[in-house]
């Protein structure tokens, strides 16, 4: 047998041995179709499952960058509540969830909660009625309350200001705790801390403050200290906090016109700005109490 014959025989043998016919070809077809459907289902699952996650992460990054995280979070929780209501048929739970974020809708407050969901999640803002019902007129054009205006702690800015200062304290302790004598005190920080400690009471870890660690809050001293800070550092780092706290202290101490003057820039600032919602709520409450 020649080379050609041997290889031809080999090719013919392979052709005859494997004709392509298989009684189980239908079974193979079924396996193919099932595998294709599984792949499609998996792709759909990945698409449905991961898309919201990616959107959430991207939205979080954007919100953190643009400073509007509380808007996004409010929207997400509201959306989750609505979806929960639709899917699980629990209207009261969903409503409770919605109310947790929109308390003023039921309480009739004038706070613009859609613009500031962060404040809506705290206790309802209110000016205590007894204090507002006896309005002595201090000036011709403004009707002012008789006594100091009592304000909730959140409106007083205790939370954010205290947290901010505590973090400054902590940073100072981290930075210079071991060798405090080597670092020159920041005069602006010293001035603001003096005012802050007078306002909220000394925190006990401010070595360069004039107050003793156990000093109690003193509104009049705090107002003087804030005014001093604002005059000494008109472009300082803590000017917004100082002006806001000063405005609230002035309201509490019956200086309604001055307090209103200090708070109005905050209330008129764009929605979502620093203390905008709180200042607006206070001023609206004052207007309502006239």
């Amino acid at each position: 047998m020649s080379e050609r014959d041997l290889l031809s025989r080999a090719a013919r043998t392979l052709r005859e041995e494997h004709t392509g016919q298989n009684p189980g070809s239908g079974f193979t077809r079924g396996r193919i179709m099932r595998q294709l459907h599984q792949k499609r289902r998996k792709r759909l699952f990945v698409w449905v499952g991961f898309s919201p996650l990616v959107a959430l992460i991207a939205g979080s990054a954007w919100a953190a960058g643009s400073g509007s995280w509380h808007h996004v979070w409010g929207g997400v929780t509201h959306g989750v509540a609505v979806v929960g209501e639709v899917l699980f048929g629990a209207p009261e739970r969903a409503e409770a969830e919605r109310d947790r974020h929109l308390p003023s809708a039921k309480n009739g407050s004038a706070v613009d909660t859609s613009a500031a969901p962060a404040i809506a999640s705290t206790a309802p803002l209110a000016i205590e009625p007894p204090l507002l019902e006896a309005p002595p007129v201090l000036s011709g054009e403004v009707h002012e309350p008789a006594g100091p205006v009592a304000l909730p702690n959140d409106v007083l800015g205790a939370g954010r200001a205290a947290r901010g200062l505590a973090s400054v304290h902590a940073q100072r302790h981290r930075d210079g705790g071991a060798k405090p004598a080597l670092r020159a005190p920041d005069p602006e920080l010293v001035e603001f801390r003096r005012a802050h400690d007078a306002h909220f009471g000394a925190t006990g870890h401010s070595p360069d403050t004039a107050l003793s660690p156990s000093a109690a809050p003193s509104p009049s001293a705090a107002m003087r200290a804030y005014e001093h800070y604002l005059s000494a550092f008109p472009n300082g780092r803590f000017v917004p906090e100082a002006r806001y706290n000063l405005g609230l202290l002035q309201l509490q101490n019956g200086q309604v016109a001055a307090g209103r003057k200090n708070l109005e820039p905050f209330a008129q600032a764009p929605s979502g700005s620093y203390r905008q919602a709180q200042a607006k709520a206070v001023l609206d409450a004052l207007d309502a109490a006239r």
Partner: protein
Amino acid sequence: MTWSTTNRFSSAMQAPEVPFEEERDDLTDRLRRGEASAVGEAYDLHHEAVRAFAARLVGDRELAEDLVQEVFVALPRALGGFRGDSSLRSFITGVVINHARHFVRSAARRRKTLDRFALEPTPSAARPDVAAEHQSFLMALQRAMDGLPLDQRVAFVVCEVEGHSAAEAAAIAGAPEATMRTRLFHARKKLQAALEAEGFR
């Protein structure tokens, strides 16, 4: 009934004819979109040819069946590289070649194991001597094929067994024509030597 009448009658009874190119393009488009029904349709049209080629290349029916399944499942994605300059069957044959490496290795390992333990079944036939000689030649051929590199094995199966020209084989395997000729030359030479070494002349 005259011839022309019969012809007109049969034409009228037939469904409207779809041009082959148009039909192929439609199936290809549906395959590209990943429609499961299109994959089923392509399987119905080409499974025998694809299975035969896969079995001849791999040399093992069960593994060839798995290879066919893998190829048709991967077909919608693989069609992304289909330019339409060859038939769908040739393209699927190329996909078989691309997916065959793992299966050829598995089949070769399996044959080695069966040879070692002499478990290869012998078919019953009316002429046992002819059947035994055929079986002996087939096993020697498979061993010789297992000794070839995959490229040369593909060249031999596509050109010698399937009967494609070197140009067609080059298009199917995605290699230059001269390369395919070279691979085929070496494949034939090695197969000849291996079969002669087994005692076949």
